[in-house]
C-alpha cells in the first residue's frame, strides 16, 4: 500500500510540474465550475428571449451579444458546457467500461480474440462522424442517444488499445508466476493485468473525452445530435450560420469555447501520457 501511494505521489508531482498539463487542468476546472453552477453564474436563462436585443453586438447587458431570438450568447454558452461535458464524460466512462471489458477478454483469451477484434475492426472501418450519424439515425436525436451512439463509436478504439496492453502484460513473468501458483483467470485479470493496463486506458479515455465533445458538437451542428432549443455548442454554431454575415460573434464565441475545452482536455491527456505511459 505504501509503495503504491508513494508511486501515486510521484506521478502527481511529475504531472503538477508539467505547465501545459496544469494549464489544461485549470481551464477544464473552470468549465466544470461553469457547468455545475450554470444557473447561478449565467446572467440569463439559456432560452430567455429579449426581442428588443435581437442580434445585438457585445455590450454591458450582453457580454457576448445575442442571437436571432434575442437570447444571451454568454448564457447559452455557459449552459451549453453542461451538455458537452456531460456527453464527453459519459462517453469516456462508458466506452472505458465496455471497451475495456472487450479488450481484457479478447486479449486474455486468444480463442475469443478473432471474432471480437473482427467486430471491432468492422466498426473501426468507418469515420467516427459517419458511424455516429448512422447510430443517431436509428436512435433518434437526443442527448442520451448521442451518448449511446458515441459510446458505440468509441468502444472499438478503447477495446483495441486495451487488448494490445493485455497481450503485452500477459507475457510478463509475474502473470506466469500467478498462473503457476494456481490463481484463477478472474483473479489474474483483476489483480495483475487490469492494474497494469489502467495507465494506457486512462490516457486513451482522456483523448476520447475530447473527441466525444468534438463529435457531439458536429452532430448537433448537422442537426442529428442534441436537438434545439437545448443550448448545445453545436446547436448554437448551426443556428449562427443563418446570420453569420451580420452577427459573427455568435459563431466566434461558441466555437472558441469548444476549442478551449478540447485543447484543455488534450493538454491534460498529453500530460497524463507523459507521466503514466511515456512509451505511447
Amino acid at each position, binding site marked *: 500500500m505504501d509503495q503504491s501511494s508513494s508511486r501515486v505521489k510521484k506521478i502527481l508531482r511529475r504531472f503538477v510540474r508539467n505547465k501545459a498539463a496544469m494549464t489544461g487542468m485549470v481551464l477544464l476546472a473552470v468549465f466544470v465550475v461553469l457547468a455545475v453552477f450554470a444557473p447561478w453564474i449565467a446572467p440569463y436563462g439559456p432560452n430567455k428571449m429579449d426581442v428588443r436585443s435581437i442580434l445585438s453586438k457585445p455590450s454591458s447587458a450582453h457580454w457576448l451579444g445575442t442571437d436571432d431570438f434575442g437570447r444571451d450568447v454568454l448564457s447559452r454558452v455557459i449552459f451549453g458546457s453542461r451538455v458537452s461535458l456531460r456527453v464527453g464524460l459519459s462517453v469516456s466512462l462508458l466506452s472505458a467500461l465496455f471497451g475495456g471489458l472487450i479488450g481484457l477478454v479478447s486479449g486474455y483469451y486468444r480463442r475469443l480474440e478473432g471474432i471480437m477484434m473482427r467486430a471491432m475492426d468492422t466498426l473501426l*472501418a*468507418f469515420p467516427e*462522424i459517419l458511424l455516429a450519424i448512422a447510430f443517431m*439515425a436509428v436512435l433518434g436525436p437526443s442527448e442520451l442517444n448521442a451518448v449511446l451512439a458515441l459510446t458505440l463509436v468509441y468502444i472499438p478504439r478503447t477495446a483495441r488499445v486495451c487488448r494490445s496492453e493485455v497481450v503485452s502484460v500477459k507475457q510478463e513473468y509475474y502473470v506466469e508466476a500467478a498462473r503457476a501458483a494456481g490463481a484463477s483467470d478472474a483473479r489474474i485479470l483483476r489483480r495483475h493485468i487490469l492494474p497494469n493496463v489502467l495507465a494506457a486506458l486512462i490516457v486513451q479515455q482522456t483523448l476520447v473525452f475530447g473527441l466525444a465533445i468534438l463529435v457531439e458538437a458536429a452532430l448537433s*451542428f*448537422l442537426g442529428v445530435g442534441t436537438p434545439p432549443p437545448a443550448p448545445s455548442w453545436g446547436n448554437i454554431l448551426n443556428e449562427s450560420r443563418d446570420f453569420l454575415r451580420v452577427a*459573427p460573434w455568435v459563431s466566434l464565441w461558441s*466555437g472558441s469555447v469548444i*476549442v478551449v475545452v478540447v485543447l484543455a482536455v*488534450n493538454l491534460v491527456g498529453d500530460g497524463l501520457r507523459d507521466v503514466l505511459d511515456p512509451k505511447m
Partner: protein
Amino acid sequence: MVLVLLTLSFLIYGLMDLIPGDPATVSLGVRATRELVEARRHAWGLDKPFLVRYGTWLKGVLLHGDLGKSFYLQEPVTKIIGEKLPVTLVLATFGLVLAVGIGIPLGAVAAVHRGRLVDKLAILFATLGVSVPGFWMGLNFIFFFAVALEWLPSGGYVPPSESVLEWVRTLVLPVLAVGLINAASIARMMRSTLLEVLGEMYVTVARAKGVKERLVVVKHAMRNAMLPVVTIIGLTYAGLVGGTVVIETVFTIPGISRALLIAVNKRDNVLLTGCILVVGFMFIFMNFLVDILYTVLNPKIRY
C-alpha cells in the same frame, strides 16, 4: 473484406428498418392518409418482409452491381454515388495533398530542431489542430474570405466542365479547412516517429562518420520514420471520403457525405446502405494500398 462489407450492409439495412417511420411516410408527410401511405409502401416494396427486401437488394448488388433505387431521390443509387463520389474525392484528395504538404515538412523540421521555437510552434499547431472543429474553421473562413474580404465564394460547387477557375475558387476554402485540420495530426506523427528514429544507433553512426545532417535526416532517418506516417496518411484519406460531411454541409458541396445525411434524414435505407458500402470499400481499399506501400518503403516487409 467482402464479409465485412456484407455484414455491414446487413447491419445498416436492418438497423434502418428499426427506425420509427419509413421512407413512404417521410416522403408523403404527416398529413398523408393511411391508404396513400400503404399504396406507396406497396409500390416501393416496403410491405414485403425485411429478409425478402434485403435479399432482393443483395442479389442486385452481387449479380448486377446494382445498389438499388433511392426512395427519396427516385434515382438509381449507383447514379447518385457516381455523381457525388467524385466531388468528395476531389475535396479529399486536394485536402490530403495540402495536409501532407504542410504536415510532413513541419513535423520533420520540428523533430530536427527539437526544443527550439519551431518545435514549440509545431507542437502548438498540432495540438490546436486536433482541438479545432472543422466546421467552425470553415465558418470562420467563410466570414473572413467570403463575407469580409469577398475574395472567394461562401459555398457551392462548380464542376470543372463549366469553369475551371470557378471550380478552383469554390474548392479553396473547403480544401484549406480539410487540409489544415489533418496537417496537424500528420505533423504530430511525423515529429514523434522521426524523433524516435533519430535516436537510433545507425543514425548516431552516420553522424559520427561525418555524414551531413541533411543527408542523415533525409536519406537515413526519414525513410524509416515514414512507415507509421504512411499509415496515418492512408487512414486519413480513407476517413476523409466519408468524414467530410461537416465540411460539405458548411460549404454546401454536393458530395457523398451530404447524400448520406439526406439518406439518414429521409429514412432512405437503400441510399444509406449504398453510400456506406462505398465508403467502407474505399476505407478497406486504402488500407490495402497502405500495406503495399509498406513493402516499397521497407523491402524487409513481406506478406
